[in-house]
């Protein structure tokens, strides 16, 4: 699949004024999507008196770092970082490993029950988790796992696994069996052929599902709200909501600084991904 054919753009270039209008429209739309993010960062650098002027301040000239120092002065922020890192890290490691094994099973083996498993992981994703959380809370409560990293991790892994299995299945199936078979002809065992030949080719797939899992676990709010009721066990999104409610209408600067800080790792992740995507588009275009 050649990801990016340059042709549509090329044909647009021919009708110059129309294309230029469309280009302007695209940039305008991009601004609509960027503006709230820009506004978050902009407000994070503005002192409170600038934020409470009747005229909004559109550029952070004469800005301040005090909003950020206020966030860093909040011990809850660091507790939340610890909880979020623990939950995200464990969820990611467990989910990717288990999903990888499951994807292997359904894309490299034919066995009884394979199809029902595939249907299960598809159907499971339709279950509205937003209806299930009370039941999940009670389950964790009976096991004494409410307000515990382990408890939240269990429900996160369950939530992320179906999609990651599905995603990795596509990647595993995309590596042709013939490569492995060639390795086996050359004397590798089936396992050996898999780990020496297929596995390295799956790295992008593992990264992709890792990014997906990271985003899900890092950004999740609903289940965290239900499971982590103790203020000492808040994840970052819960902490941010606490900050909003504590500062409502008085100090948006601190809130925006907090929002900026929890977004930074995610945006960095996304920019990395974006670079890879552009590179892919370019190489696809060159290949034509």
């Amino acid at each position: 699949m050649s990801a990016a054919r340059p042709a549509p753009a090329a044909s647009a270039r021919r009708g110059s004024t129309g294309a230029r209008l469309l280009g302007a429209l695209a940039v305008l739309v991009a601004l609509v999507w960027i503006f709230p993010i820009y506004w978050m960062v902009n407000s994070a650098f503005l002192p409170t008196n600038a934020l409470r002027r009747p005229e909004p301040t559109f550029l952070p000239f004469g800005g301040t770092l005090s909003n950020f120092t206020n966030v860093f002065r909040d011990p809850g922020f660091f507790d939340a970082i610890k909880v979020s890192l623990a939950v995200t890290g464990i969820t990611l490691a467990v989910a990717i490993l288990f999903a990888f094994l499951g994807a292997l099973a359904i894309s490299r083996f034919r066995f009884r029950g394979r199809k029902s498993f595939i249907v299960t992981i598809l159907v499971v994703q339709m279950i509205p988790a937003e209806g299930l959380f009370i039941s999940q809370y009670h389950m964790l409560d009976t096991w004494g796992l409410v307000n515990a990293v382990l408890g939240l991790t269990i429900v996160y892994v369950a939530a992320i696994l179906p999609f990651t299995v599905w995603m990795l299945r596509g990647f595993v199936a995309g590596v042709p069996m013939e490569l492995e078979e060639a390795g086996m002809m050359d004397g590798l065992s089936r396992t050996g052929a898999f780990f020496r030949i297929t596995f390295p080719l799956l790295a992008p797939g593992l990264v992709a599902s890792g990014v997906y899992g990271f985003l899900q676990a890092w950004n999740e709010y609903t289940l965290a709200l239900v499971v982590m009721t103790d203020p000492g066990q808040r994840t970052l999104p819960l902490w941010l909501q606490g900050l909003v409610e504590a500062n409502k209408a008085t100090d948006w600067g601190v809130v925006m600084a907090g929002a900026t800080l929890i977004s930074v790792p995610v945006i960095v992740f996304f920019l990395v991904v974006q670079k890879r995507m552009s590179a892919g588009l370019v190489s696809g275009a060159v290949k034509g």
Partner: protein
Amino acid sequence: MSAPRTSSSTVLPPVPPRAPIVAPAAPEAAVRRPPRRRPIRARLGPYLLLVPALIPIAVGLGYPLVRQFVLSFQEYGLAQQFGQPAEWVGLRNYAELLSDPYVWGVIARSIAFCLVNAALTMAVGIALAVLMTRVGRAARITLQVGLLLAWGTPVLATMTVWQWLFDSQYGVINWLLAEPLGAEGMRQHSWIIEPASFYFVATVIVVWMSVPFVVFTVYAGLLQVPEECMEAAQLDGANAWQRLRYLSLPMVKPVLLVVGLLQVIWDLRVFTQIYVLQRAGAPTRETHLLGTFIYSLSKEFSLAGAMATIMLVITLALTVFYIRRMLRDDV
């Protein structure tokens, strides 16, 4: 050579536009190795690989689902919290909910909200994906970066920004409406007090958040349309709109179906956006949708279970058409 595929998939969850072909591994392996050599291990292999994935799904989703379903037919109160066996009450919980006009109001609002948001998201998303195929490289990348930023920012962070944008006193939206646009009455306007206005704000936020995924997925689908077909159509005199309407869109229909299905599912279960806006000072009773309503029932476990089951049934009812189509086309 495989770089474009994998790296674009990094961004796009591979919603199965083209079902990956499963390599027929086992039969060939069986030919190569006599099955009697390690028969049990060979037969157990795939199951052993599946078990680690199955256990968390069964524990974290399956068990709560079954338990909730069972409890929706029982009376589960304080006594049961202390170990008393729950009493079977048949359909009483369902009857209690469904005889309440308020519950019907929540259901109707949720379905309306879901359909409006899914339709708007799809319309805007498809339009932007088509736009992306028509513009030059610089404009396309600008749009991609903007959408990626919006997509990547954590939901809670975006929710706080939107609250700040819509803030009644110092929010930039009220300022924009009052100053450059001259709508003086908007100066202190509170957006979330009135339910209709509350849903308008929620719709803006949900559409803004959901559009990037649709754009990237549909755009990737549009790139799959073979250039030869487009050229042939162009030679036959089809204009740009006709090529889109009768060629590109039908060809990406499987992608549109999957993405549309996901939008309906996601918008029906919307929780965080509604909950956070409610916490910002909206009247909760008038603004509940299914998710927040179930959350508000958390003390009455049996009722919450019954309501969650009703929600599941609504999800299935709204999506059964899609699912049947997908199963016929795809799996």
